[in-house]
């Protein structure tokens, strides 16, 4: 049985969205407008919480040999 990490997911997702916004600005793809500076961290927050609650990346269960 595995337990979720929603707090870690929320913090990591929020910060990842902010850093992705900064990457886009630094690499001259998109300036720091409302969409990137607010939208991407918000999207990261939502995805992070979902990942932390659902933890869908857990290693696959091994089936016992019959």
């Amino acid at each position, binding site marked *: 049985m595995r337990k979720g990490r929603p707090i870690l*997911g929320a913090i990591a997702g929020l910060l*990842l969205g902010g850093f992705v916004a900064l990457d886009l600005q630094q690499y001259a793809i998109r300036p720091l407008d409302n969409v990137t500076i607010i939208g991407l961290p918000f999207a990261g927050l939502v995805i992070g919480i979902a990942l932390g609650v659902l933890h*869908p990346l857990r290693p696959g269960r091994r089936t016992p040999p019959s």
Partner: protein
Amino acid sequence: MSSVVRFVGAFAAVGTVLFVGAAPAGAVTVSGPCSGTATINGKQYTTANKDDASLAHPMPLPKTGTVTYEGTTGGVTKPEHGHLSVVLGPGEVTIYSWKSSNTGNKTTDTGTKSLTSASKKLPGIAGIYELKGYHYSNGALYCSGSGYIKFTDSPLSTPLGIVAVAGTVVTGLGLLVAGLGKGMRA
């Protein structure tokens, strides 16, 4: 690894929806009778061409060389003042301002600035910025405009660029750990 791909795909999908749904106009905009040109190292940019300094073709600002500018207000503005600002999310940061009583009733201004000395005042800056300009006559907004500028330095040559890339990697790993959950004994 397929679940990792799904996670990356979900993040990219949300980002794409956000970008398509709220993409900025991208072109140079000028409101009012003002117009102007800037010539950087021999290439001229003008407010008459909406593709100059657009989001798709931001005006590059190299570290060396000169910029020759010419601007006209299309009429006498007095007393006049204005400023240039950089857009940062919902706010703007003023980076240059001017003020004059304009007793000579000037309607045009020309000049040359050194990019080399300007870049020394702005070390460690890279990337794209939306630049907005405002000109006021007798306290009322006379004209305004916006466009995009791009500093041609490599992001990895600036502290902010290094922090951005390193932060993306570290927080990306944090998100992966969150997606893995933590093991518990049954």
